[in-house]
């Protein structure tokens, strides 16, 4: 039953309403009485409805609302809070006595790793001093797949492009092996492009926590999620100033806003924020909330990438871990919370400095630092690391993604916080890009002329560099991986290897027929292969045919040994499976630079093929090993026959189609030019003792260029290799191989001083047994002088 007070009030209300009704609906008195009685009854029911339905209903709705908020919070907190991008790293640089490296390369590597050059002995991680050929470096510690590499403080002396001295500065003892941290390459981001490096609370310096709470939420450990005193203080300040000068949000409220709500300034959002903060604090420990805050807070933008959390921010702005920051650097980061864009030290260093000093003053006020420290720290300039802009090396990253996709879902790569260690050599990548950028304009003024390059390690098939466009940072079509073009004469070493594996029939001295050839295919159509110079040369040795890249003898040899066998050899060397057809002998087969690199890696390793790899290891977000991609090697060709081919490929770069290389390079290399019909594709594939490089040049629409393999791609190859190769290519020592002097005219044994004599390599017992009756030449190098 309603109380009396409620009754009278209801009566007043019903009276006024009924009065209104009288004036509008002129009904009989009896009827009015009836209406009045029924109205009173309905008001009573309304009161009852309010009491019995609306209030409990509202309470219920409120309860549902709280449950809904609660679920949102717990679901997020008890599941995965963030999607963590995969972080991709370059290979780590290792130094040891005898390591081949130039001072220029070491400077480049330190710069790439964001090491700071200093004038005195480096005191902090990631600092170095450099004068003449000496470096003093304090490295960063780093967790690799095989454990943690501690920081080293070392002195490195380089002479003649080799490390000749490597000393631990503090112990003054020899440092045997120093591994640097791996340089950050890129991230594989979720769609929102948020990036972060997760921190655990115990990894955060105590002073940083004190500073943060001092500036953002002094009563963090005593409030329940919202702080009425802060709100009241902010209200007073804002009302008195007439504008929003101060916020009263606690850290918990800021976290709730960032994690669950939008940035819009609405009262409903503030209400949600308050309730969710209370719920969050009800469910979870203060320390967990603080840790989450430290990892969530937005601290700037790097292109598309959003910098979240202090872990990433300290690395992004200062190139080091939070625990290694100085107090002024920490103060700068804490100051950025107020406005990550306005106080961004890279964009607005004056604002950042001003804000940092406000933070430092507050610290002095709270006696976290002394007045002397305040003066000292406030006087320091704002210094951030220069960062290579993201999106570098897109062609290489394509290759990495391709390899990772074999073992990981795309979603996992974007969200599981994997750490991916790749084989990229930043210096070789840089030099490859420079070689293409600087050489292409010299080759042609036409800016649509394109190029691609792949550099791999002969030892293990590690992909060291990939360039997919004349503008290397272009993220579009990746020619290194996807442009499948005719390889031309690059096939000839494969073809002749097929022949030389039949050692009873073929040697480098075998005479081949270079005369007109008309081949009739199964459709009775004639095909007449021609040499590049449109001439026939009669009888030539296999060696000379390869050296000068004659087409006609190559076709004859291919037909003789069987083109299916040539296709098999190609596959055995790491190429793809292809079908056999006569023009295969001239390289009428489409391949990408990456596929060619796979084949030539086998040549460089004397027949031992290692599948190309761009990833060596993957760690999970806890930095525990997840996957290791070990070195693989296999051999399916005769190594002795490969050595014969390689001996000829060395001579190709001295006396053959690539003879300009030996004039411009100080070290011995081996390689082969390739040109497709009508000069549509210009190729060079070759190797030194430490790298294999393949370069392609041509037009995307397959129009003819004016370039041959030697006038186009080889020039880029030369400019690349002379910058990054240190070791000459040497033929392997093999018990079954021996050298003999041969008469280049007839392939018979000759005296060294014979005219046309050339020294060729043979598998023991396969050398010719007849001697040539050639005459002695004035110069024993006559044969090669002829080529030159």
């Amino acid at each position, binding site marked *: 039953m309603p109380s009396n007070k409620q009754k009278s009030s209801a009566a007043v209300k019903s009276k006024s309403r009924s009065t209104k009704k009288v004036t509008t609906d002129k009904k009989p008195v009896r009827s009015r009485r009836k209406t009045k009685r029924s109205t009173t009854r309905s008001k009573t029911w309304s009161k009852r409805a309010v009491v019995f339905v609306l209030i409990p209903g509202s309470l219920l709705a409120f309860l549902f609302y709280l449950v809904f908020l609660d679920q949102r919070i717990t679901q997020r907190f008890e599941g995965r809070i963030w999607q963590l991008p995969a972080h991709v790293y370059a290979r780590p640089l290792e130094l040891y006595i005898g390591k081949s490296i130039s001072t220029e390369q070491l400077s480049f590597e330190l710069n790439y790793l964001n090491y700071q050059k200093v004038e005195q002995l480096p005191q902090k991680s990631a600092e170095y001093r450099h004068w003449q050929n000496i470096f003093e470096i304090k490295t960063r510690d780093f967790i690799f797949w095989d454990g943690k590499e501690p920081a080293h403080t070392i002195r490195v002396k380089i002479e003649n492009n080799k490390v000749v001295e490597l000393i631990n500065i503090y112990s003054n003892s020899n440092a045997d092996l120093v591994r640097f941290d791996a340089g950050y390459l890129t991230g594989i981001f979720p769609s929102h492009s948020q990036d972060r490096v997760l921190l655990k609370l115990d990894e955060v310096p105590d002073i940083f926590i004190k500073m943060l709470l001092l500036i953002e939420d002094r009563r963090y450990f005593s409030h329940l999620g919202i702080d009425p005193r802060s709100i009241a203080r902010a209200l007073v300040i804002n009302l008195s100033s007439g504008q929003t000068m101060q916020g009263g949000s606690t850290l918990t409220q800021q976290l709730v806003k960032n994690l669950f709500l939008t940035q819009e300034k609405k009262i409903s959002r503030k209400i949600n924020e308050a309730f969710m903060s209370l719920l969050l604090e009800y469910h979870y420990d203060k320390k967990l909330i603080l840790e989450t805050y430290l990892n969530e807070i937005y601290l700037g933008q790097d292109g598309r990438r959003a910098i979240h959390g202090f872990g990433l921010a300290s690395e992004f702005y200062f190139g080091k871990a939070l625990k290694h920051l100085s107090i002024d650097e920490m103060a700068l980061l804490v100051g950025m919370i107020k406005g990550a864009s306005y106080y961004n030290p890279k964009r607005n260093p004056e604002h950042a400095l001003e804000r940092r000093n406000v933070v430092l003053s507050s610290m002095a006020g709270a006696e976290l630092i002394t007045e002397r420290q305040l003066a000292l720290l406030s006087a320091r300039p704002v210094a951030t690391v220069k960062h290579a802009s993201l999106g570098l090396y897109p062609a290489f990253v394509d290759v990495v993604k391709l390899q990772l996709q074999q073992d990981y879902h795309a979603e996992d790569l974007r969200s599981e916080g994997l750490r991916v260690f790749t084989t990229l050599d930043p210096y070789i990548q840089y030099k490859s890009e420079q070689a293409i950028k600087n050489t292409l304009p010299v080759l042609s003024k036409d800016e649509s002329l394109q190029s691609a390059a792949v550099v791999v390690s002969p*030892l293990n098939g590690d992909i060291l560099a990939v360039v997919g466009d004349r503008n290397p940072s272009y993220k579009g079509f990746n020619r290194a991986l996807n442009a499948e073009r005719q390889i031309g004469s690059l096939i000839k070493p494969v073809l002749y290897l097929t022949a030389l594996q039949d050692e009873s029939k073929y040697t480098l001295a075998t005479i081949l027929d270079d005369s007109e050839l008309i081949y009739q295919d199964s459709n009775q159509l004639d095909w007449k292969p021609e040499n590049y110079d449109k001439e026939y040369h009669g009888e030539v040795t296999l060696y000379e045919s390869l050296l000068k890249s004659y087409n006609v003898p190559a076709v004859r040899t291919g037909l003789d040994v069987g083109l299916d066998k040539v296709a098999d050899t190609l596959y055995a060397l790491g190429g793809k499976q292809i079908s056999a057809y006569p023009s295969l002998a001239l390289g009428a087969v489409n391949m990408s630079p990456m596929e060619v690199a796979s084949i030539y890696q086998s040549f460089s390793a004397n027949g*031992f093929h290692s599948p190309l790899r761009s990833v060596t290891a993957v760690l999970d977000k806890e930095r525990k090993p997840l996957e290791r991609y070990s070195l693989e090697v296999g051999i399916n060709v005769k190594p002795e026959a490969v050595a014969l081919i390689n001996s000829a490929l060395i001579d190709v770069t001295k006396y053959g189609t690539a003879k300009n290389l030996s004039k411009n390079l100080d070290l011995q290399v081996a390689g082969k030019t390739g040109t497709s019909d009508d000069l549509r594709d210009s190729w060079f594939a070759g190797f030194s003792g430490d790298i294999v490089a393949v370069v392609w040049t041509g037009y995307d629409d397959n129009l003819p260029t004016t370039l041959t393999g030697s006038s186009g791609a080889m020039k880029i190859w030369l400019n690349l290799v002379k910058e990054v190769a240190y070791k000459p290519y040497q033929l392997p020592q093999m018990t079954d191989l021996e050298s003999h002097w041969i008469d280049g005219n007839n392939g018979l044994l000759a005296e060294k001083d014979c005219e046309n004599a050339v020294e060729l390599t043979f598998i023991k017992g396969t050398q010719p047994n007849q001697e040539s009756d050639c005459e002695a030449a004035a110069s024993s190098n006559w044969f090669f002088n002829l080529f030159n």
Partner: protein
Amino acid sequence: MFQRLRNLSYLFISILLLSCASTEKPESYDDIVGGSASYKYEAWRLNDAVESEAIKVLLTEIDALIEDNSFNAATDKLERVLRIKADYAPAWSRLSWIALQTDYLERSIDMAKRSNSFAYGDTRLQLLNWSFISTASKALNDEDNYLRAQQKIDSLSSF
């Protein structure tokens, strides 16, 4: 008397069997491969005068890892050795041995062949590598390669 004769005949037979066994596997082969439980084959021994400190340090760590049965970690470090010196045949040989221990038989054969490609003039190491190839081929039931490996072992043992 009869007892003594019987003992003497046992002794004689034993000596005969042992001598047969030693002709089946030449002494040099036993010396090198040994069949001992130790993995530290003589053929892997460091040439202190030649090898760099970096390689020595890594090999010491590798030995410790192998003793701890941490073959994956040892493999990682062997790869680091090869990045320093790609033609360091004993490192390839160790990779072959680890593959053999972990039943990656084909990998063991490949690594042993790679080791041999750098082991020019080192008969001891070649012999060891062929023993790995032989063991792995036998386990793979690859009769041809097993016999070829045995032939190589025989011919190398005769040096």
